[in-house]
């Protein structure tokens, strides 16, 4: 692997964990790591280190810092909160809930268990309400 490929992976990871952070915070972290990666590769190349070893060194620094990256991200703004606010996550949850409700209705129908069919129906209705509410709130946002 070439060092450029390794630095690209690190940059992608930084962009991923700085997503949805305030611009000044995210830009500072991205710019700082970009400069660090440039200096790292330039220094190792000047020392005559092979491309493979440089790439491994860059990836090793990223891998060893993953926990700190996540912890830093959560200290600035919780990832869980972002996930909860994400329309896609809410729709996926509603879809999963609807699938569970349909499964309950099918099993309830096959086993002649009207209670289970009713529970399945309520779950499906609940899933539609949750999904509809998420879309309505998103559309209503300025």
């Amino acid at each position: 692997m070439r060092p450029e490929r390794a630095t690209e992976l690190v940059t992608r990871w930084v962009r991923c964990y700085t997503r949805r952070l305030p611009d000044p915070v995210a830009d500072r972290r991205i710019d700082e790591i970009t400069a660090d990666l440039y200096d790292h590769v330039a220094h190792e190349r000047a020392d005559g280190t092979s491309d493979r070893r440089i790439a491994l060194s860059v990836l090793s620094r990223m891998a060893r810092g993953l926990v700190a990256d996540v912890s830093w991200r959560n200290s600035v703004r919780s990832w869980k909160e972002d996930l909860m606010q994400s329309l896609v996550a809410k729709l996926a949850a509603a879809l999963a809930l609807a699938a569970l409700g349909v499964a309950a209705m099918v099993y309830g129908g096959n086993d002649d268990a009207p209670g289970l069919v009713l529970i399945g129906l309520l779950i499906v209705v609940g899933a539609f309400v949750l999904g509809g509410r998420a879309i309505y709130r998103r559309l209503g946002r300025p």
Partner: protein
Amino acid sequence: MPLEVEILAAAVSMRRAGQATFHGFGLAQTMREQRESRSLTAHGTLYKALGRLEGLGLLTSTWEDVAAAESRPRRRLYEVTGQGIRAADQARADQAAGRLPRLAPGPA
């Protein structure tokens, strides 16, 4: 030694050697040399610790001038404050006395 204490010790030694400001990769290199290690400090741990030290008022930082950066990405330049130097000296004294070095910023 906690990473923050190690960073401050490296920053103070660079300052005493005539290098008032330092950047992330330069610091990682200095720390690697000082601890005679083969690996550089990870990005995540390094920049998280630098942010913490800055928050405590032990370091300050500014962006390098674009002109000085020439064709490479501009660096964030850090400088140890007077409070940081005192905290590093205290941490070194704690270590010499066999106590766990702690960063307790003193009065500015």
